């Protein structure tokens, strides 16, 4: 589980630390840095997995404008069983021209070093804290991209999987393609490849189907079932609804935006709940009717409590804001220093009035 995030010198995040629990809710006005936190995690994931170049993920303009420093720092703390892993990355931006470089990158397990990359040279350590190997050429890539096989380096190999356990989701219902694409088996943040991901997951874990079918029967009136229908080499998602006592097939295109979002959210939660996944949901309440929100909040918090799933939710919806006590909730605000600050004890803000009302008045920033 991702336990904490530290960010320094990125957009409005200066010496910023966020502690996380299983079910988390990030609140705050526009421009207070909530999405910047998700953006850092998304970019770190792409950096560690070698999906993009450092200079594109952390361009010079991502530095804090009012901070006179060329070094950006990021730290993630993961907890698993009794082990605590610390990942740290420092990026050095050039003063004039050129591209950003890795200043240092390190991984600690408890107090023991597993990886240290500095001055273009990476050192890899076994679980017993002995040097296993060294490598060069790491100035603009993550040393974590390099795996090595050693019976005594299980913890390092295990840590490398952590960044594969982040799922970033900001659902764009109109972008969701209704037909599978064999090139995409992973989620994209806009969920455009969701149908392909769902087909892959459905094949891996068929018992989730019945659970989902039951959920959808409660969410969608007259819902009967869903399934994939082969068309050529690809598959189309079909949803069946009862009409005049007959089961009538519908394509995903025919659902409303709200129905699409609900279908995606319930599918994501059901398939990810048994995995040690951190699901970042950026404003999932868009498009959803009021009566669907409380059931959704209950499912998210129940799954987080009962399973290995961790959820980080960003929302501006009053119904979710007023459920802040159900989550580990933090409120982002920008004070006079412009840096993002966090309010953790939200109960003090909303003694008589609901928190959404306090936020509607802008009084949380006082």
């Amino acid at each position, binding site marked *: 589980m991702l336990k904490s995030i530290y960010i320094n010198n990125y957009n409005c995040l200066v010496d910023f630390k966020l502690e996380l629990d299983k079910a988390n809710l990030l609140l705050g006005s526009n421009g207070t840095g909530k999405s910047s936190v998700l953006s850092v995690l998304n970019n770190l994931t792409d950096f560690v997995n070698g999906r993009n170049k450092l200079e594109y993920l952390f361009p010079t303009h991502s530095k804090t404008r009012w901070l006179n420093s060329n070094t950006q720092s990021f730290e993630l703390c993961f907890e698993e069983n009794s082990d605590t892993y610390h990942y740290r990355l420092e990026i050095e931006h050039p003063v004039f021209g050129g591209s950003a470089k890795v200043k240092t990158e390190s991984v600690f397990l408890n107090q023991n070093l597993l990886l240290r990359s500095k001055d273009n040279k990476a050192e890899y350590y076994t679980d017993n804290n002995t040097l296993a190997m060294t490598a060069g050429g790491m100035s603009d890539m993550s040393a974590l991209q390099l795996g090595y096989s050693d019976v005594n380096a299980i913890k390092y190999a295990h840590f490398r999987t952590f960044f594969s356990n982040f799922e970033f989701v900001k659902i764009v219902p109109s972008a969701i393609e209704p037909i599978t694409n064999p090139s995409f088996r992973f989620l994209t943040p806009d969920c455009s490849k969701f149908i392909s991901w769902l087909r892959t997951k459905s094949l891996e874990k068929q018992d989730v189907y019945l659970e989902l079918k039951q959920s959808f029967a409660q969410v969608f009136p007259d819902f009967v079932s869903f399934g994939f229908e082969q068309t050529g080499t690809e598959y189309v998602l079909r949803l069946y609804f009862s009409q005049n006592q007959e089961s009538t097939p519908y394509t995903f295109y025919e659902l409303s935006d709200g129905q699409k979002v609900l279908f995606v959210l319930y599918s994501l939660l059901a398939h990810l709940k048994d995995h040690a996944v951190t699901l970042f949901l950026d404003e999932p309440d868009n498009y959803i009717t009021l009566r669907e929100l409380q059931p959704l909040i209950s499912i998210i918090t129940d799954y987080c409590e009962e399973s290995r799933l961790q959820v980080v939710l960003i929302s501006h919806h009053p119904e979710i804001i007023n459920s802040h006590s159900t989550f580990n909730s933090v409120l982002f605000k920008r004070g006079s220093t412009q840096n993002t600050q966090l309010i953790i004890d939200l109960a003090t803000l909303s*003694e*008589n*009035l609901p928190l959404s009302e306090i936020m*509607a*008045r*802008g*009084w949380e*920033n*006082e």
Partner: protein
Amino acid sequence: MNSDRVYIIVICEDVGHKSFVINFLKNLGFTERNYRILDKKTGGDGYQFICSQLSVEFPEYIRNRNRVKQCLIAFTDAEPKKISAEDRVKDMSKHFERSRDDKVLYIVSKRCVETWVHYLIGEEASEDEEKRHHTGAHTKTKEAVDRLNRICTNQEPTPGNFLPSLQLACKEFKERFPE
């Protein structure tokens, strides 16, 4: 003044009060971002609504008065022949007791706010008349609040025949509305 947050909370009992108070605040230079109107959207007793909202908002005002710059306005009608505007202000002051410095205003029109509008634009109006609704009064609200602002901010002398409930409202404004 920070233009990006709410300074004034207004509790009012019908759409006439709402229209009047919005125009009044805009005339003073406030924007939609600076006030929040809590109006009765369903049926039921207007004064009961005002009191139930005050029971939430007044303690919140007290709790935040040293932290947040704010003003609370309760805007309601009296009950002609039963309760005067003055008694209604006293009643609210008794249940929601304000200190001298609190920016909490109790504004009460004797019969209905439309009577104020008619009076302020120079038409014949009496707070003792039984007739409650005055067709077309809302369209004249802007003109009415403009005059009321001038009177309340001493740009125009208080008329000799000033309606007693308006006089009371002006007094509340002068004594308690934040500068």
